[in-house]
């Protein structure tokens, strides 16, 4: 019948399964300036980006290694003029291609060209339900209006549309309006993901982190909407780590399902992994994706459960959450191999709760916008 794709839990080289997804960060350039941007604080310049041929070679190697899904991301992937060629190559290789876009750079003709080359799916980000709040969060005038026009073009092309919203203090009470908007835009899916606090979002945490009460209201509302809209609009909800008791199974395990390639060709097990300073990430210009996946020290460091210390090592949940998020452990404790402080079995959990309460009670300093176009 069917089986959810799975790789072995602990992964000796011989039993390591193939990756499923490739997140291709084509560029860090983006006209938006979101304060929770998931790109690293040190951004790759245009002249350092992999060229068209290099990206297509990465796609080919990824497919040969077993990758099925290609996420074309950034930055804003629409900033790359070779996007149609990249989409076309992905389709020819048999990859399922997903364009993750802010929707403000591609016009109707550009989108039509992508559809003609075989793009499978579009994921469009919105910042809020109303233009004024949305444009103030994204730091881009008229951005929201352009996004709404873009969503209509996506649907007119017959392409499936996911609306994605990063949730935080300023837009969390907007949820009913956001859900209505996704319905009006004829989206197939809605992804509501609480901001994760690494990189830019970590710098803006005191302006972004919602209170526990605000989160609880939002979560109850999403759960109700998921039931009510079950057949009209499936909703994926990524809960906020800081108020959780058990860590998420981050990336479904370190180097277990996904390879990220940055604009300059560095291969990572997760898009935030460069925040961990002592990992030496290999580059696709120097090594094959297969050797990176199987042999590189960076990909093997936190694979499976062998790297774990206590309290994870002997924990009954260790196979279930695989220790949570390494980047978060590093961001909060300075040590990537410690238990994710989100877990209430972690010795750092109480400190995290205190920190969350303090940040959520703060008045919210002005955003430090991420500017890089």
């Amino acid at each position, binding site marked *: *019948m*069917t*089986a*959810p*794709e799975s790789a072995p839990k602990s992964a000796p080289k011989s039993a390591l399964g*193939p990756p*499923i997804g490739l997140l291709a960060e084509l560029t860090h350039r983006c006209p938006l300036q979101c304060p929770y941007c998931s790109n690293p604080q040190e951004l790759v310049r245009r002249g350092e980006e992999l060229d068209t041929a290099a990206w297509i070679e990465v796609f080919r190697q990824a497919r*040969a*290694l*077993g990758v*099925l*899904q290609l996420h074309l991301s950034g930055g804003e992937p629409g900033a790359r003029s070779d996007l149609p060629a990249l989409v076309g190559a992905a389709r020819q290789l*048999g990859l*399922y291609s*997903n364009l993750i876009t802010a929707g403000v750079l591609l016009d109707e003709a550009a989108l039509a060209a992508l559809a003609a080359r075989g793009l*499978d*799916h579009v*994921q469009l980000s919105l910042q809020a339900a109303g233009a004024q709040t949305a444009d103030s969060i994204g730091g881009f005038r008229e951005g929201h209006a352009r996004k709404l026009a873009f969503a209509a073009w996506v649907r007119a092309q*017959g392409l*499936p549309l*996911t609306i994605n919203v990063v949730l935080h203090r300023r837009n969390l009470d907007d949820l009913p309006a956001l859900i209505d908007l996704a319905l009006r835009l004829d989206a*197939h*899916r809605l992804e509501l993901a609480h901001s994760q606090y690494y990189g830019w979002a970590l710098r803006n945490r005191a302006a972004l982190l919602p209170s526990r009460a605000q989160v609880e209201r939002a979560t109850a509302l999403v759960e109700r909407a998921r039931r009510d809209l*079950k*057949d009209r609009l*499936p909703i*994926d909800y990524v809960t906020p780590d800081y108020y959780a008791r058990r860590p998420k199974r981050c990336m479904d395990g370190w180097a277990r399902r996904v390879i990220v390639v940055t604009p300059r060709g560095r291969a990572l097990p997760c898009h935030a992994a460069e925040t961990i300073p002592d990992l030496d990430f290999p580059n696709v210009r120097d090594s094959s994706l297969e050797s990176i996946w199987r042999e590189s020290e960076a990909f093997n460091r936190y694979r499976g459960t062998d790297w774990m210390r206590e309290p994870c090592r002997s924990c009954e949940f260790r196979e279930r959450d695989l220790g949570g998020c390494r980047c978060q452990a590093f961001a909060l404790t300075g040590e990537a191999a410690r238990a994710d402080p989100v877990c209430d079995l972690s010795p750092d959990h109480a400190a995290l709760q205190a920190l969350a309460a303090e940040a959520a009670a703060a008045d919210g300093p002005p955003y430090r916008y991420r500017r890089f176009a």
Partner: protein
Amino acid sequence: MALGEESRPRLQPFVRLQFDARRESWVLQAPERVLLLDESGKTILERCSGSVTVAEIVEGLAAEYDAPREVIAEDVMAVLGLLAERDLLLLDEESQP
């Protein structure tokens, strides 16, 4: 809408079914979702056109494979239930009797 014998299931438009030589398996792809399917899973899904009911799919397969209806029905409901749970199926039910 619950999955039942009167449902007329079809795959969501963004779902792609393809054979993956690397895994020697049929795979079902959708945003953030990949499912591996064996031959019988694939045979069931190929019949989910949105115009036939689950009951008709079951009867068709029972006749074609000369198998007891209840065995086939269990397989079909298992596969479709798993997909419906993951929001990969549309279940248009006909309003007329």
